[in-house]
Each structure stands twice: as structure tokens, then as C-alpha cells.
């Protein structure tokens, strides 16, 4: 019954910067694969999809960037408040040795969980985290403390100056990774897919589309082309699966199911 709605209390909140917070929830998920997501209900407001950014004894962690009405309302939530959870949903990343993890912006959230899980399983992982500026990074101290993690920022306020694609080739050469797992803005993902495939890596991308039901019925999250449901067969897709996606890096559908005109 992981699919049913359960309300749970917020145990702790970490404020990383303006409009950037992580929420630790009291249960209710026993286990999940990194890359899977939950539908988060803010009673009286709305329900939206969020990646699991960590899961352990302490509870379920969600990391959120305020970008609109729902995520801004989430910033007002206090410890002790109830939030509703459905999930975990979807298919996560494969856990395999010698994987290069690349996250952009709030996209680092699922990679935080993936990195931890790989560590638990003693699989070797390298992590590249890219943000616009230092204030956009969740858990900066944590990422800074990781031995195999490289942080890049566009304005140089944290880590190296640049964008993630600037440093990938270097890491692949140094570390000899054979797989690439990435999450973040879709243009970045497309660039990483191209780069990864050029370098002969097995690529997995964590995509986002508008999600309403989370359980494979409403059809809003279906990619154009193969029609694959990101909430069930995704959100993580492999290179092979990505070949069936005709709207990759192009405008997606909105809440009405209509294709947007401009880029997302």
C-alpha cells in the first residue's frame, strides 16, 4: 500500500539558502531506489513530485527549490506539520560500479541518495555537482567533505568555475568510469548524454515531465515518441530508452497535456 496517501510529520528542516530547503519526514517509506520519487501533498494546496534525496533510519529526506506557488508554500512548512506522501514511485538508477554521477542545481537531490546507496554497497562512484552559485547547493559541507566529489559553479562562488560538461572528460580519464548517471536541467542532460555516448559510457538520465497521478494513468508524464510513462517506466531512462524520446530537450507538455510552445 505504498501507493496510498499517508500523512506524516516533518521531523526536521534544513535551510540551505533562500528558497532552498531539505525536509526530513517521519517515515513512512521503508525502502526505495535512488531516482525514485514521491508525490508530496501539502494539505489545502496541491501535490507535486519530488525525488528522494535521502532515506535511512532518520526518515525520508526531500530537498526542494522554490520555483512557484507550491514550492514556495513548502518553504512555510514548520517542524511538526503534517505532509502527505504517496510513493515511492517509478524506476531508479541502476546501482553499478564505476559510475560517474552528475547533478545540476536541485538535480543533485537524487544523486545525494544514489551516492550514499552506492557507498553502502561499496560501489565506486565519482560525483560532479554543478550549480549557478553557492547558494543553490544543498548540503554544501557534505558535498565538500566527499573525497570523490567535484563541485563547479558558474560564478565560481563554490568549487571550480564553470559548468559540469567542462570537467566530465577529465574525470572520465582520471577515474576510468564506465557509466554516467545524471539529473538536472534537461539541456544539461542532453549535453551529458551526447558526451557520455561519445565516450562510450552507459548513460542514465533522470528526466522530469509534468506529473499528476504518479501511478501511470493520467498520461501527462508520457514522453513523446515511445509514449513511455516517466512515473512508472522512468523517471530514469537508459540510452536505449532515450532513443525513443522525441521531445528530449524540447518543449514538454503542461498540466493540460498540451505541448508548450517555448522551451521548458
Amino acid at each position, binding site marked *: 500500500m505504498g501507493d496510498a496517501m499517508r500523512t506524516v510529520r516533518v521531523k526536521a528542516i534544513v535551510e540551505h539558502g533562500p528558497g532552498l530547503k531539505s525536509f526530513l519526514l517521519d517515515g513512512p517509506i521503508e525502502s526505495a531506489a535512488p531516482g525514485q520519487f514521491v508525490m508530496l*501533498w501539502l494539505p489545502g494546496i*496541491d501535490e507535486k513530485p519530488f525525488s528522494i534525496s535521502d532515506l535511512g533510519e532518520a526518515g525520508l529526506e526531500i530537498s526542494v527549490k522554490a520555483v512557484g506557488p507550491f514550492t514556495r508554500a513548502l518553504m512555510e512548512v514548520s517542524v511538526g506539520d503534517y505532509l502527505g506522501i*504517496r510513493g515511492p514511485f517509478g524506476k531508479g538508477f541502476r546501482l553499478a560500479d564505476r559510475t560517474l554521477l552528475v547533478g545540476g542545481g536541485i538535480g543533485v537531490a537524487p544523486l545525494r541518495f544514489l551516492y550514499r546507496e552506492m557507498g553502502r554497497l561499496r560501489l565506486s562512484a565519482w560525483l560532479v555537482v554543478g550549480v549557478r552559485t553557492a547558494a543553490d547547493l544543498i548540503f554544501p559541507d557534505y558535498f565538500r567533505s566527499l573525497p570523490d566529489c567535484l563541485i563547479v559553479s558558474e560564478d565560481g562562488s563554490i568549487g571550480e568555475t564553470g559548468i559540469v560538461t567542462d570537467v566530465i572528460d577529465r574525470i572520465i580519464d582520471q577515474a576510468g568510469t564506465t557509466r554516467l548517471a545524471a539529473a538536472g536541467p534537461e539541456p544539461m542532460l542532453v549535453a551529458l548524454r551526447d558526451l557520455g555516448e561519445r565516450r562510450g559510457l552507459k548513460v542514465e538520465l533522470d528526466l522530469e515531465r509534468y506529473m499528476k497521478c504518479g501511478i501511470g494513468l493520467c498520461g501527462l508524464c508520457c514522453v513523446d515518441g515511445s509514449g513511455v510513462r516517466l512515473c512508472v517506466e522512468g523517471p530514469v531512462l537508459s540510452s536505449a530508452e532515450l532513443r525513443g524520446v522525441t521531445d528530449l530537450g524540447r518543449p514538454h507538455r503542461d498540466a493540460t497535456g498540451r505541448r508548450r510552445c517555448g522551451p521548458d
Partner: protein
Amino acid sequence: MPSLAVRLGLLRLESPLVLASGILGVSASSLALVASRGAGAVTTKSCGLDPRAGHPGPTVLPVTEGLLNAVGLSNPGADAMCEEIREFKSRCPTTLLFASLFGRTVEEFGEVAAHLAAAEPDLLEVNVSCPNVSSELGLPFEAKSKELAAITALVKKKAGDIPVALKLSINWGPIGEQARICAENGADLITAINTVGPGMLIDTNVMRPVLSNQVGGLSGPCILPLAVRAIWEVRRSVDLPIIGLGGVASSEDALQLIMAGATAVGIGTAVYHQGLDLFERVNQGLLRFLAEKGLEDLSEVCGAAHG
């Protein structure tokens, strides 16, 4: 060799199974995905004149052996839907496409029908029974005999040669009576049933309804007996082919609806419980049934339970 093909009025479907409206029905790509899995026809999400985002979340909730949904008729609008219909038809020539539609007024039903008809779907399915938009659109039109008659006649006029099905629920009194009104005003088929209720789920921690719309329609295995009965009732009332649906999750379930009087059988919620393989599984089960009973096709048992 038994065959699964059925004649639904003037239409011929390779399999009696139809993807229900509202399930994976907003884009040509998702409809094509289902078509590739063994559906004889697919139905688009109910479409209105203009794009609609529907209700805020939560909109779909699992309950005991079913779902409660108040998606709120989110849809890309008739013009965008026409593009999807055309794309689907060029990609999937052997699977029929049913275009579902709704309107906020009698006239709007006609307008939407006219728009959609231009894309030449194989059937227009008129949703007059959605139980989760009442707070905005008032009682479903099926509850109001005069409007029901007017909508049927108007859509029929705008549809040209395209057959028209009226989709009914059991939520507003005798469905047989409603079916009769549709038949008298020119409907070619009846689709039954839409979701039941509506119902409500309350979270006992936050002490409020969980669906943002407060109430939503019930679907899935738990409504099967209600669907069987409804189709039985429609079959007794009118002499129109029936697209039966509501809770079908196996070939046994499909056969119950067929024996109650359905010619084609819709599948919606069970896609959630059983995945997209369900269409092929039910097809196989139906073929096995035909072989075991030594029947040529399903028309031989359509309505058989009426004795």
C-alpha cells in the same frame, strides 16, 4: 479458428478491448503505446473546447481495490487534441480511435464535437457523466433529461458520419431510462459506466478530505458488480451496442460484461493494478474461453445472461 474481432455498430475492432477515457489519453504517443499492447480501440481523455489544467493535486488516490479520482477533466483543448488524433491515426492504422468530449453547456458539446469530428476519429464518445466537476459545472448532464436529449441530438448532428456514443454512470438514477433518452435522440451506442459516487477519503491526521476537489469518482475492481448490473439494465432498455466498462481486470470480468450485454469492453483502472500487459492477457483469456466453449466469436455470448 475463433476470432476476437467484434462489430460495434458499423465499426469493426480487432479486439473487443478498449482503453477507457482518461487513461493515458492525452497524447498520440501514449495512445500508441497502449495500441501496441493489444487494445482494439483507444479512447482519448475527455476533451473540451479550451485547454484545462483540471484540479490541483491530489487528483488520484488508491483506495481499497480501486481508485478515487478527481482529475477534473484536464485536457489540452479540442484543437490540440485534433493534432494528437491525426498523429495517432497515421501511426496506428489498425487500432480504432474514440474521441471523448465534454462541454460546459449544451452548445459547447456541439462545438467540441464539430472540432473533433474534423480530425475524423472513429467514434465520438460524449461524456455527460463525469462525477467530479460538479462544484464547477453543476450536476452532470445525464441527470437532466432535457439537456441529455439536446446534447445527444446536437452532437449527432455535428458528428456527420461518425458514430456517437453517450457515456453514462449509475450516479443519477435509472441508467436504463437515461439510455432510452439517448437512443431516442439518435445515439448510436452507449458507453457505461463512468466512475461511481462520487466518494471521499478523509485523512484522519489533518482531518480533511484528501482530494483537492474533496470528492472523486470511484473506479476499479470494486465497481465491477455495479457495472455488470448497469450494462444489464441498459441492454434491457435499449437496442444499441454497448461499450461496457467498470472494474474489468481479467477475461472473466470482461466476459461478465459481455454476457450482461456489452459488445466491447473498456479497461481503465486495472492498468494501474496490472500494467499494460493486461490487454494482451485479457485477449488471451478470451480466446481460451472461445476455444473451450467451441465458439466462433464473442457475439455468440453477448447478452447471454439474459437467458
